[in-house]
């Protein structure tokens, strides 16, 4: 008999992690970013507690620069499966006009994502927060534990992580400290799409190719939504057959030219790719090791 397949093994391990956190923490919350990884994580949570409801809320930290389709999806899908979704916006920063062009991406992310996240976690009194990050995404993620300990300021100390052996997780924290938990740590981008295909999990339509208005600048396709990025002389949005490989904020997420309009087509495309999924994320490239720096400060 063959052993349990690779995907079902990952599934069983992730469910174990979700239940462990629900059992041992007083106030867990699931960070819901609307992307494909969140969709998979949400499905795993449904499975973990079936036929009961998911015993913790979902939290979306909204930078207000998200794509319209993302917000529509967010307002529809979690509610349709009976999940309790909460939205948090750093109003103060947003009202002060925070945006990546004037502030720079690092500072903008710091205010609208990291600061907002930390505020939302402390206001909600959450002691454990699930995130959909995968270790194959980025080099500092590859180093992170499944239970990632954070001090009272939400900060990660990569040089002093707790040992984490077998599937026995240490959930002890002092008051004010918290744990970020990554149930998808061992999934790859291909695993995620394959699982979405296998399980028929709904995802935001932006992942699928169709003609969309884009500003073409060199090799990049910049979405004109929110009009944050100033156009250069002669530039105007034009229709391009394209899709998003990963979803973020409109000013900082480029599209890719693609014909892939179904999940299998996306997987097929993925297999031909020679470039990583975060490459189109402008934010990771600010400086060498920038993801690690942001994580140290409290980012996911």
């Amino acid at each position, binding site marked *: 008999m063959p052993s349990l397949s690779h995907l079902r093994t990952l599934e069983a391990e992730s469910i174990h992690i979700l239940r462990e956190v629900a059992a041992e923490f007083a106030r867990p919350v699931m960070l819901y970013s609307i992307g494909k990884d969140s969709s998979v994580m949400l499905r795993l949570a449904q499975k973990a507690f079936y036929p009961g409801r998911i015993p913790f809320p979902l939290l979306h930290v909204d930078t207000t620069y998200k794509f319209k389709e993302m917000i529509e999806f967010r307002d529809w899908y979690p509610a349709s499966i009976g999940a309790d979704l909460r939205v948090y916006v750093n109003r103060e920063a947003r009202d002060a006009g925070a945006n990546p062009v004037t502030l720079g991406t690092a500072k903008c992310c710091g205010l609208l994502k990291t600061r907002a996240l930390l505020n939302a976690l402390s206001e909600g009194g959450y002691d454990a927060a699930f995130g959909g990050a995968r270790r194959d995404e980025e080099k500092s993620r590859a180093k992170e534990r499944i239970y990632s300990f954070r001090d009272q300021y939400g900060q990660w100390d990569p040089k002093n992580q707790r*040992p984490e052996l077998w599937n026995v997780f240490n959930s002890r924290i002092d008051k004010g400290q918290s744990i970020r938990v990554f149930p998808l740590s061992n999934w790859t981008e291909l695993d995620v799409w394959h699982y979405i295909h296998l399980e028929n999990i709904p995802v935001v339509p932006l992942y699928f190719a169709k003609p969309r208005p884009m500003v073409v600048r060199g090799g990049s396709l910049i979405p004109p939504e929110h009009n944050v990025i100033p156009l250069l002389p002669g530039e105007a949005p034009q229709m391009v057959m394209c899709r998003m490989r990963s979803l973020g904020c409109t000013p900082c997420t480029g599209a890719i030219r693609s014909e892939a309009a179904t999940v299998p087509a996306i997987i097929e495309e993925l297999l031909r790719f020679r470039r990583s999924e975060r490459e189109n994320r402008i934010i990771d490239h600010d400086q060498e090791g920038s993801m690690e720096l942001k994580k140290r400060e409290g980012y996911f």
Partner: protein
Amino acid sequence: MIAAETNRESLSPESLSIDEFLARELNKDLLRFSTAGSVDDGKSTLIGRLLYDARGIYDDQLDSIRKSKVNRSSGAIDFSLLTDGLRAEREQGITIDVAYRYFSTPRRKFIIADTPGHEQYTRNMATGASTAQLAIVLVDARNGVLPQTRRHATISALLGIPRLVLAVNKMDLVDYSREVFEKIRSDFFAFTSDFGFEEIQPIPISALEGENVARRGGQMHWYGGPALLEYLETVPVSEDTRSRPLRFPVQYVIRPDQHFRGYAGQIASGTLRVGDRVAVLPSGQSSRVASITTFDGDMQSAHAPMSVTVTLEDERDISRGDMLTHLDDQPYVSRRFEANLVWMTEDPLAAGRSLLLKHSAQQVSARVHSIESRLDIGTMERKPAATLSLNDIGTVRIDASRPIFFDRYRDNRLTGAFILIDPLTNSTVGAGMIQSAVRRQTVDLGHVTPEERYARNGHGPALLALANGPLALRLERRLFDHGCQVIAAAQGAHTAALYAAGLIVISPSFTGERAIDLNHLPLPGDEEAAVDAIMAYLEQNGILATDRFSSGEGI
């Protein structure tokens, strides 16, 4: 055919449609392996090379390491930068913590844990090795077997990794000499002969040049064995846990309404079928499996390592930490057992220390009854020892405050493993692998003595008089967070009993000679500072053990 070999593996539309590809993907199994060996033996370089050759690296990632200011290798690409992802690691040119990397070939998926070689980061190496089914132990051909090679091979054996690859690396620096390889091989086999590995595959490689990594190289004609990747693709990963005795630790109870009471958990070993008679530990009651419920529909049977939810025919009082097993093949149930322990914190372990023990879904307080021996890495002998220091490997006896249900680690890697947590710092300080149950001691231990209470609580009893109500609550919180047994309460009939039980009792006023009156201490106005002052005072008076509270940093 698509010309460029693609991300992680090739998909050629003529020969394999996407549906066929996905069907094949679904049938792939998974091999988890870790690296081991001393600093600079080439672990990170090997993994980088393997990923590169197996096309597990994207162009932009490659570009970024090509452009990197750091390159410690003598080649065009410093492959170690592919896994050494932390800034401190790149700056210092070392691996500090485990990096997990992923790749697949048409045959199999792989999860790699690239671990650090420095002795000070042994706990991170153990983290990576704990879930591995195979370890690649690297040895620098110029240096041969080093103490750290021994330590890592020992930890790999203790952690129950069944198979090793002995990768003799940097063969390019010893002219691909067969003699050098054979010498290291026999040294290594000599000291691991009674470690109980199922198989050790020695492979001479050059991680830098890629010799014998993804394919057999041209430099070592005298070597007739497989290249590393060939071996990884074909080595059996069986470890068929589903035919072993059933162990189902109850992790979570699901009760959506009065009609459904399900016990959720991940099957640690064995197979569970609807209609099976099962025993509930620790109560010993039995019942039958009524259903195996999942989101995808009910199942007739389920096996390790699936995560499922089980309902029983009878109402039973079952909660997290309990375990379902078959009636005939039960685990040990005991409060006392002997275990191999890797100690993972600077503060040395001595007998009598009270800690928290987490074992599958159970967390209990426990005491280290005794240290039986410590392994001398130099001579590989077990010698008597009073303490275990950071990274020491020893055998200890543990007394848990409640019985736990376990198997010997060598029989079951999940139900035989536990971690130890320091209740004060919350750090994970030990990784344990149970060897056997210890029979109940026949000598009568008599009444629980104040010394035993002190050892368990980590502090002496006290009656503290403190009239300032808010300050009293703040003090209670601080002591509680320190792991003390403490209560702020009015003086009453049970005060003497609480004191005798070893608690710290805080009341507005106390009479009697044992009371410590804090009301007359010169305390600073700031509450936080006042609590600090009281803590220091309690330390001076021997209520709190000074050494235990100063060990907070540097874990």
